[in-house]
């Protein structure tokens, strides 16, 4: 029997010999029955006329859309509209842009915020805030170190990558860099949000986090952070951070040799006299230093 003989059979394409052979098989009656029964099959009703009317209606709708031609004036208006949108967009974009103030190494700057709150920005630091939204939201982003004298008013928030500090009106210092997050409150009450935990800092207290660990530190006895008076002070701070601060204050390169920079340092150095500063660090830390131009090398004392 040839290939696809069932299809051929239905089409009457089998030879007489093939047909008589097929009729002898047991299946023949079954196939015959299927074909008979399939004549009773019917597809669902389909209203051709109605479908044609439907399609004519859709054609009309499509055509009316198709025919519209833009007059030159309309084209011009399109361009004008596009330009207008662009201008408005730029205006709003520029307005929503944050005011950003950055200090370089060995630089310090004072900023007066729209509500007369004051910010003193230490070296290599950055703050940004929105002038436009300042009335509704006193929110300032900080990267580095800054001292805030906040005018009384609505909640004032300093956001850093490490944590958020918020107050109503007070004076406080915030440091966030090199794994250190430190907040010192000098007046009023400060609330520090770190790892979703809120800590209240009354005047004269500090909050310190070193590499994610909260440390207990004693309150400073000053009314302002020492760096405001050109002195960098540290209490149980890793030496590496102290040396980085030196770098920031004097814009010099600092190198170390055979020194454990994880050692904690307590003390302070002058931000105006480099010789004095180098001595202030090296003597308590029991290390030596060599200053050559813009480069300082700290090294361990040989113990021959």
């Amino acid at each position, binding site marked *: 029997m040839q*290939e696809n003989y069932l299809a051929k059979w*239905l089409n009457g394409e089998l030879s007489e010999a093939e047909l008589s052979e097929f009729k002898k098989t047991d*299946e023949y009656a079954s196939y015959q029955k299927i074909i008979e029964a399939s004549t*009773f099959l019917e*597809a669902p009703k389909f209203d051709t006329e109605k479908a044609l009317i439907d399609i004519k209606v859709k054609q009309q709708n*499509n055509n009316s859309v198709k025919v519209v031609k833009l007059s030159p004036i309309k084209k011009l208006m399109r361009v004008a509209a596009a330009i207008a949108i662009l201008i408005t967009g730029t205006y709003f974009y520029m307005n929503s842009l944050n005011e950003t103030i950055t200090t370089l190494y060995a630089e310090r700057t004072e900023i007066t915020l729209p509500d007369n709150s004051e910010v003193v920005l230490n070296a290599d630091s950055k703050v940004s805030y929105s002038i436009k939204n300042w009335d509704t939201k006193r929110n300032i982003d900080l990267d580095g170190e800054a001292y805030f004298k906040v005018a009384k008013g609505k909640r004032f928030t300093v956001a850093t990558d490490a944590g958020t500090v918020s107050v109503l009106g007070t004076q406080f210092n915030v440091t966030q860099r090199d794994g250190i997050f430190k907040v010192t409150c000098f007046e009023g009450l400060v609330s520090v949000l770190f790892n979703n935990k809120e800590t209240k800092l009354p005047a004269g207290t500090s909050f310190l986090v070193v590499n994610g660990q909260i440390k207990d530190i004693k309150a400073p006895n000053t009314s302002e952070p020492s760096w405001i008076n050109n002195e960098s002070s540290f209490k149980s701070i890793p030496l590496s951070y102290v040396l980085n601060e030196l770098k920031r204050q004097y814009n010099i390169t600092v190198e170390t040799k055979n020194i454990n920079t994880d050692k904690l340092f307590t003390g302070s150095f002058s931000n105006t006299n480099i010789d004095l500063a180098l001595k202030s660090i090296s003597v308590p830390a029991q290390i030596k230093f060599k200053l050559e131009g813009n480069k300082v090398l700290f090294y361990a004392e040989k113990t021959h």
Partner: protein
Amino acid sequence: MASKNNNSVCEDKVYSHIFTTNAKTVFNYIYYKFGNEEKANDAVQEAFLKLWENCAKVSPEKAKSYVYTIANNLYLNVLKAEKVRLKHADKTLKVSNESPEFILEHKEYQDKLDAALNSLPENQRTTFLLNRIDGKKYAEIAEMEGVSIKAIEKRMHLALKSLREKIDGI
């Protein structure tokens, strides 16, 4: 852009003629494939609207296969074949003086056939039903499906084979 040619698909007469002669088959074709009446109706509308939009580019001779291609592509990836619920007419039975036993047996057999049709692969079912219900020649089905006549013969052969196996319970 309507062509001035009287034989253009853009001519209302030509277009309407193509529609009336093919719409029902397009409907059935999609229905056999996916078993969904609503989608079959949509397919007819979409395919013929596309034909109208492109009437200048499609010659009347090509219009038929164009419409099938559009209709087929429309649901190729979207629809999963549902159960086909074909209705059988009882045209013979209405005027019959058959015994109740015969009528019952007939009904049972038609139900079996239905179930067997549902379990066929979509392309075999479509080929079988286009041939049996719409009286389409293998060559026409081949054109609709965009395959060779031999492929359609193969589908027909396999369809019959598995219908028998299912109904006879092999």
